[in-house]
């Protein structure tokens, strides 16, 4: 029953993430602050204000954002792997990343205001997936292969549009902004943005978690799922909609954060098995813990912050090689 351990793992990672930083705190400080907030412990007012500033205003938004985004990308990846019956699929398969990247760059080119950039990234992420589905349905009803191809075409289309925007961007000011955005960062996320995005991300992750049993049937094949009473199209497009909502919002908040959506579901599958009703919550919890930890590394390993997308790639690749060794038998 390892699924039950994951919430504790996540809690421990959160506690560590709130403690470490340029002004290190002991986990007991965090617990003390929590106690003071609840009126159980007395803290001197200056100490309380310092802790409040560090924990609530500086670190908590990043921890919450990392947790939400990690959960969103991992559960999207796990559900896409089931929908497409392919363990090598990641959340970007239908073009959401290409679209969101283009949207963000366009936002930077046209206004530079961070809210505009986020909204533009989110909307274009949805548009790209819509275009991919449209292309796959051009010549009759979409099969899984045409869906993947439609997504690839759409992703490529938006990636080339992104190149065009980069070419048109001011090389001293806008172009670096676009490049940094692409590397991913949680540095700009504040509590207000989180309040806007969190309910929709949680809705997406929650919907995916509920689809677990249908996804098990779907990963056997369309005809078999139908013969088991599962509405195949509703499930497939419902899952795509929920995963796209969650991952597009994630990208709009923090830029490109790669490998989480591919690697975390595999690690979760090795730990608790392939049954999606358990795998999806496990992926969400593990993904949250992983990205919070990766963000800790990103902001503490050097004096200057490293883009989190770079950290997830550097951590994700060796993890994936290890997973490959363990999971090889199942793929042969």
């Amino acid at each position, binding site marked *: 029953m390892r699924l039950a351990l994951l919430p504790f793992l996540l809690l421990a990672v959160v506690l560590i993430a709130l403690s470490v930083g340029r002004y290190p705190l002991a986990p007991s400080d965090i617990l003390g602050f929590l106690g003071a907030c609840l009126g159980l412990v007395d803290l001197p007012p200056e100490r309380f204000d310092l802790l409040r500033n560090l924990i609530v205003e500086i670190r908590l938004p990043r921890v919450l954002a990392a947790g939400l985004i990690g959960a969103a990308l991992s559960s999207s990846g796990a559900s896409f792997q089931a929908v497409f019956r392919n363990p090598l699929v990641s959340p970007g398969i239908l073009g959401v990343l290409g679209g969101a990247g283009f949207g963000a760059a366009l936002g930077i080119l046209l206004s530079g205001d961070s809210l505009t950039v986020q909204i533009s990234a989110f909307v274009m992420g949805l548009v790209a997936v819509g275009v991919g589905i449209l292309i796959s349905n051009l010549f009759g009803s979409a099969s899984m292969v045409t869906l993947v191809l439609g997504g690839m075409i759409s992703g490529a289309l938006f990636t080339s549009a992104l190149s065009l925007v980069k070419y048109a961007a001011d090389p001293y000011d806008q172009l670096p902004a676009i490049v940094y955005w692409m590397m991913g960062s949680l540095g700009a996320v504040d509590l207000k943005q989180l309040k806007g995005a969190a309910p929709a991300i949680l809705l997406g992750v929650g919907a995916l978690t509920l689809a677990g049993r249908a996804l*098990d049937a779907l990963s*056997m094949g369309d005809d078999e799922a139908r013969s088991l009473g599962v509405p195949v199209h509703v499930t497939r497009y419902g899952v795509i909609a929920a995963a796209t909502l969650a991952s597009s919002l994630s990208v709009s908040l923090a830029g490109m954060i790669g490998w989480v959506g591919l690697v975390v579901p595999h690690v979760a599958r090795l730990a608790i098995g392939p049954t999606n009703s358990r795998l999806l919550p496990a992926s969400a919890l593990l993904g949250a813990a992983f990205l919070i930890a990766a963000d800790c590394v990103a902001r503490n390993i050097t004096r200057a912050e490293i883009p989190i997308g770079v950290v997830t790639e550097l951590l994700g690749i060796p993890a994936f090689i290890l997973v490959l060794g363990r999971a090889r038998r199942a793929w042969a």
Partner: protein
Amino acid sequence: MREPSPRSQLQGLDLHFARGKRSVLEGATLGFGAGEILALLGANGAGKSTLFRLLLGFLSAKRGEVRLDGAPLSSFSRREIARRVAYVPQGHVTPFPYTVREVVMLGRLPETGLLRAPRAEDREIVESIISRLGIERLIDQPYTEISGGERQLTLIARALAQGARLLVMDEPATGLDYGYQLRLMRHLSALAADGHGVLVSTHHPEHAMQIATRIAILHEGRIEADGPPQQVVTAERMRRLYGVEVAVFDDPFGARRLAPIVERREGAPR
């Protein structure tokens, strides 16, 4: 939800289906019910799989109608169909290492729905079906690591877990070794004796003659013959269907047998 009727039956009436311009079925009529084993013979590409997909409601016919327990198939929800008719595909490999227990548990989906977790009674049903098919030693093995014959039995177990009286099996013997082919035949006979109706497509007329209560032949988009094995399987028909010579005779125990006539090269060792 309507309860499955005790006398379950599934019928396709005058089914027409075309893929693009190519006509696949031109008025095929086929039905089977509880207690029967109907074997469907037909050459490669004759349209057996299409006919099955129409009967299961995965495809819609251009003309004609499918009736389940006397009512149009289209009047049933997917879940209602799944509680009456189960589909057994050829043993395939899944991309994810589900255990045999987990695969069979999927058969409880029509009963539990998509949101309710399996209960103790579901687990009991699954375990008893798995031991009935004699694969209990595999119960916690990954489905990806068992043999083709074991996978086929797992899929039959999943179909039984649905609680459906009618089973549609698409060439279940394909790729199985001799022992598993015979074991499969024995299981199908037992299922029919138990009140299940089985529609099975096969490339082995011998299998059909051993276990089927009826044999139907799909040829050029129509059911060319449908009746007791002795009447349907003749040397002339086998020649027309498969383009090969076979001898058809009754053995000393009164069962009809097929023997292929293979032209031997001069001097080949006997």
